[in-house]
């Protein structure tokens, strides 16, 4: 993992928004290295900043938001310094593309789907006319649309939800991007379709040599697609590691809580595990570990000093004082211990 090429490097990124005269800090000094060819999943509750974080890679922050500090290094340039739209046009769509959540709203209802794919090709690849059309048809075929010649001429309303999402994906890969960001790509879809779309995305990743970022709150999706997982809470990545490390050997109390609240781990007739309280108010400065007020196992220091990353393995690190050598031993909840046992059994067997 360590010797792999870093394609995108985010350092101490701070993103703020102005809202009704107050200033909200959405991303609090988050850092991330994205490796070439990997698939990274960012998980977290709504409001944890996972969408804002990735939108900032494409200059898609809302008008009332700005990058306050930090850097986003991509191909030797610092994207955080980009001020004008013209700069972003070199990156957006061409180098970094995005698939949005709802296929119902991300297509233009007045244009045929073929034209929409073709438009992306003409704009970004400099190919025009018939040639672009042929390419558009072959991409439609790549994303699993049958009879692409005829479907090229159809409008979005003639497509089902799953098929529309395929078209959205076709538009995203049509520009031959290096990084593909999928923001909740399957949340709006049925399970059977969801499974198909995930298979498709995995296939395209190999075929087009993509580095993919999935933003999702569905841990089932994460388990399927991710090489690495980053857990976000209150605007910071509090734990990051290989998929299996985070699932079977989670370290941060928030990751414990997130995994424990899954209905799959619940026992019928008993209450599901819930996280008490609400996420912190991002209008105020957060002291210490942002999760401490909701964490029944919080240490004193959690309320005073923000934890740095502690390395668990060369590929796995978490921001929690529990990993400090001086910290008392705190046992994770029962359900997490079960997961850990499975992991150990799996490693030995």
């Amino acid at each position, binding site marked *: 993992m360590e010797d792999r090429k870093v394609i995108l490097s985010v350092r101490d990124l701070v993103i703020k928004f102005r809202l009704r005269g107050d200033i909200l800090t959405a991303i609090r000094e988050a850092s991330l290295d994205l490796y070439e060819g990997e698939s990274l999943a960012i998980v977290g509750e709504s409001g944890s900043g996972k969408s804002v974080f990735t939108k900032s890679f494409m200059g898609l922050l809302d008008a009332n938001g700005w990058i306050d500090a930090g850097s986003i290094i991509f191909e030797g340039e610092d994207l955080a310094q980009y001020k004008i739209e013209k700069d972003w046009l070199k990156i957006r769509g061409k180098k970094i593309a995005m698939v949005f959540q709802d296929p119902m709203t991300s297509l233009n209802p007045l244009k045929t789907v073929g034209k929409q794919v073709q438009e992306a090709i003409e704009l970004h690849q400099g190919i025009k006319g018939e040639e672009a059309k042929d390419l558009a048809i072959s991409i439609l075929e790549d994303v699993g649309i049958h009879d692409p010649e005829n479907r090229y001429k159809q409008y979005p309303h003639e497509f089902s939800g799953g098929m529309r999402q395929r078209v959205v994906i076709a538009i995203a890969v049509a520009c031959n991007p290096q990084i593909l960001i999928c923001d909740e790509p399957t949340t709006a879809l049925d399970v059977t379709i969801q499974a198909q779309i995930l298979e498709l995305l995995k296939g395209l990743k190999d075929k087009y040599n993509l580095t993919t970022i999935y933003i999702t709150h569905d841990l089932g999706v994460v388990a399927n697609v991710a090489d690495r997982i980053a857990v976000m809470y209150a605007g910071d990545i509090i734990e990051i590691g290989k998929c*299996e490390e985070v699932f079977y050997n989670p370290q941060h109390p928030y990751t414990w809580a997130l995994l424990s609240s*899954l209905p799959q781990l619940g026992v019928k007739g008993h*209450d599901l595990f819930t996280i008490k309280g609400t996420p912190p108010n991002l209008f105020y400065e957060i002291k210490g570990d942002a999760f401490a007020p909701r964490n029944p196992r919080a240490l004193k220091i959690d309320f005073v000093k923000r934890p740095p990353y502690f390395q668990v393995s060369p590929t796995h690190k978490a921001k929690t004082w529990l990993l400090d050598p001086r910290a008392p031993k705190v046992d994770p909840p029962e359900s997490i211990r079960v997961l850990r046992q499975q992991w150990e059994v799996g490693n030995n067997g």
Partner: protein
Amino acid sequence: MDKKKEVLLEVKNLRVEFGKRRKKFVAVDNVSFHIYRGETFGLVGESGSGKTTIGRAIIRLNETAEGEIIFDGKKINGNIDKELDKEVTRRIQMIFQDPMASLNERAKVEYIVSEGLYNLKNYKTDEERKAKVEKAMLDVGLLPEFLSRFPHEFSGGQRQRIGVARAIVMEPELIIADEPISALDVSIRAQVLNLMADLQKKKGLTYLFIAHDLSVVRFITDRVAVIYKGKIVELAETERLYRTPLHPYTRSLFSAIPIPDPRKERAKNLEVYDPSCHHDYDKDPPRWVEIEPEHFILANERELEEYRKMLAKNGVQAIG
């Protein structure tokens, strides 16, 4: 559950149509099931399969074309008298999917929760109404002080609690929960599910739980029906169905459930359902059959034989 089961709601050969003549669309076709008092009955299927339509037909929001809906011994679909209509409104309540869209933005919580009471006037004095509303708020874990606030002042989870409060204030017996947690975050989902389970225990509620999230359905329901294109294809006790799904559609649906466990998730086998190659219904149309006690399936003779073999095989495996 093992005690004597009383049927609270019975749906017989229900058919719901939209549009007329050439534009006619059959949303629900010959659906039958019953719900016992005190249980949680799940209805799963993909979007457009008609699960919401069934819920809305029960609560009299959609007209029925054929069939009967019998609630506590009385037929409640079609033309019924005003008194019964009121009674149905009180005894069957609904919780909606999106708490952001289902609450009146311009009304205070007090009005939202009281609205059903106002409509039916089943309180004597205003004090009584207030007491009922405050009790409902406490029951769902909200403070009575919140009554003077507007919906936008609440988080998604709290809004859904308000949605639950306005249902239980009517003291219903049956609650139709249409995707009550799909719009919520993972951690808040657990809270709302716990709340629903808690209220069920305290008030002896019966739930019709409509959802497409199959892992939630497994956790919360006692029995579950799988619906495909307006027809129920399989119905059984939840655990039994999840362990031994027989119908090819049920199997494909269950095989697609995302498992939050990387090893199992990556090892799983997707099954694909294609009605044209799985069934030969032209010669031998399917029937609704009880293949084993409390396990119903839509199948024709040839398929039934196949399914029985599968059951026998599973039985052997379970013993061995």
